[in-house]
């Protein structure tokens, strides 16, 4: 089973929900797909056992063979190749790694070489009640623009037989879609403010388009106004859980601690939410 956690607006508590849920479900694994700014490790403190670099293939031109015909440039829709008189320049940061240039080059002058875009780290987190949590995250290299290939690589670690919790990045564009695609269920975390609601509505539209079932967690549920509740009722969206603003939670968060560490009764609440999602899926 794959449960992803997304939000539209940033800073609403995705990582809080993802880490606490992962700690409350036995034998889960967490995959942090917010590869631009991964944070789950701050709270789960995993012992990293393996680091694997992730590459995308980019073209390399063999100048001996290239005759400057320009076919590669014609088939590159990303403008990652510029053909000069006797040379081809490669702008690897624009390359999506589709492979068309190498395939079509009549001189066979293009080979594909690996460019590192980030790294995947895997390991284990010990939970306070002795269980083990499998931990996987991707970290985009600074200055790299394209996160989707790295997110795809993180998702290769999904265990089809187990419970997989995916922490998605904020927003509604390609990195979010890449992260939540293929989920059995998506939890949208929001806060009851105008910003939170505006971005929740955008996220709901995305999930409906992708036909992924979803529900909402309202974080800091006692701040702001009632409009988020009204919206969910009107749209028939299940509110799975409300987390009130508590000083203890905020203080723990700021120090890199989870809710279930400081308020252990929350573990039952997260378990109940998981069971609700799982049983809902069986129906």
């Amino acid at each position, binding site marked *: 089973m794959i449960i992803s956690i997304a939000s539209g607006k940033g800073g609403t508590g995705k990582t809080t929900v993802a880490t606490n849920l992962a700690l409350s479900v036995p034998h889960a694994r967490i995959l942090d797909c917010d590869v631009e*700014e991964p944070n789950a490790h701050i709270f789960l403190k995993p012992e990293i056992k393996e680091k694997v670099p992730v590459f995308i293939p980019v073209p390399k031109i063999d100048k001996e063979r290239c005759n400057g015909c320009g076919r590669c440039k014609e088939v590159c829709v990303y403008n990652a190749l510029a053909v000069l008189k006797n040379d081809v320049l490669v702008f690897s940061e624009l390359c999506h790694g589709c492979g068309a240039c190498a395939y079509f080059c009549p001189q066979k002058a293009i080979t594909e070489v690996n460019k590192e875009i980030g790294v995947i780290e895997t390991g284990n987190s010990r939970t306070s009640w002795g269980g083990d949590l499998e931990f996987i995250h991707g970290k985009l290299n600074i200055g790299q623009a394209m996160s989707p290939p790295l997110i795809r690589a993180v998702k290769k670690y999904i265990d089809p037989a187990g419970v997989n919790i995916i922490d998605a990045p904020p927003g509604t564009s390609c990195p979010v879609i890449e992260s939540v695609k293929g989920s059995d269920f998506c939890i949208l975390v929001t806060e009851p403010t105008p910003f939170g609601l505006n971005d929740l509505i955008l996220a709901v539209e995305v999930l409906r388009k992708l036909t992924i079932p979803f529900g909402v967690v309202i974080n800091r549920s006692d701040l702001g106004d009632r409009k988020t509740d009204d919206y969910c009722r009107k749209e028939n969206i299940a509110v799975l859980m409300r987390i009130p603003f508590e000083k203890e939670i905020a203080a723990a968060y700021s120090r890199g601690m989870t809710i279930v560490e400081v308020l252990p009764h929350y573990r039952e609440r997260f378990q109940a939410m998981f069971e609700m999602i799982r049983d809902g899926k069986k129906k």
Partner: protein
Amino acid sequence: MSVKQIVVISGKGGTGKTVITASFAALAENKVMADCDVDAADLHLLLDPRIEERHDFKSGVTAVIHKDKCTQCGLCRTLCRFDAIGDDLTIDPVSCEGCAFCSFACPSKAIEMKENTAGEWFSSQTRFGPMIHAKLGIAQENSGKLVSLVRKKAKEKAEHIGADWVIIDGSPGIGCPVIASLSGVDCALVVTEPTLSGLHDASRVIDMARHFQIPVFLVVNKYDLNIEMTGKIEEYCRKEKVPFIGKIGFDKTVVEAMVRGKTVIEYSDGEITQRMEDIWSRLQKEVSYGKG
């Protein structure tokens, strides 16, 4: 003077970028506002723009297979690296990267690349002056290109009306839309919060800004939620030589003002307004003197 561009970014989401950007809208004179958080835009909720011009944003292409021409050879499926072509040789438009490899390679010319309407951009007026903003289409890509377009239009507008500033609300993260919102600006203001995640993400976005040789300044929002962590962030700034130009206390009026669709400057005469004024005046000086 030429137009100066300032972008507000954070790395981590939800630290207060838009609230601070909107305060600058109320404080700065003679400026154009630009919302570059195109896939979760919020600045319009505080600035209430009246849309004067509306344009489609066409970007990227998606493959469409014409079944009548298709001979089911399956070459497209073999070549596609984005798993966008299913066993039944239909295209999943969400997975399609628009690379057109399949279309170029198809021996029976059965695959057409159709242009996407990936969103809309707007030129508007607000009670604080002009604003350029956009809305990315649902589940659309190319947000970086839409950000670049908003930047370009905002700069043109500023030059046209002789504005001094373009003030840009950025998006969270360090990837393509953030890089697009940052390239060529005069400075980036990084807004963070006193948490381990806030510091971790701010340091990554600062490294990213420096990678592109953009001067950075840092502000801690809600600093009093964890004074000790604020101290650590100040220490980080000293060590990394990042100018620390202010801290803003947690203030309930931020959400109250937001609920009423106002900036905190309009809504409150308290401490927070004073802090915002200090930060804006400091930033203004740094940018003006810093570049002569």
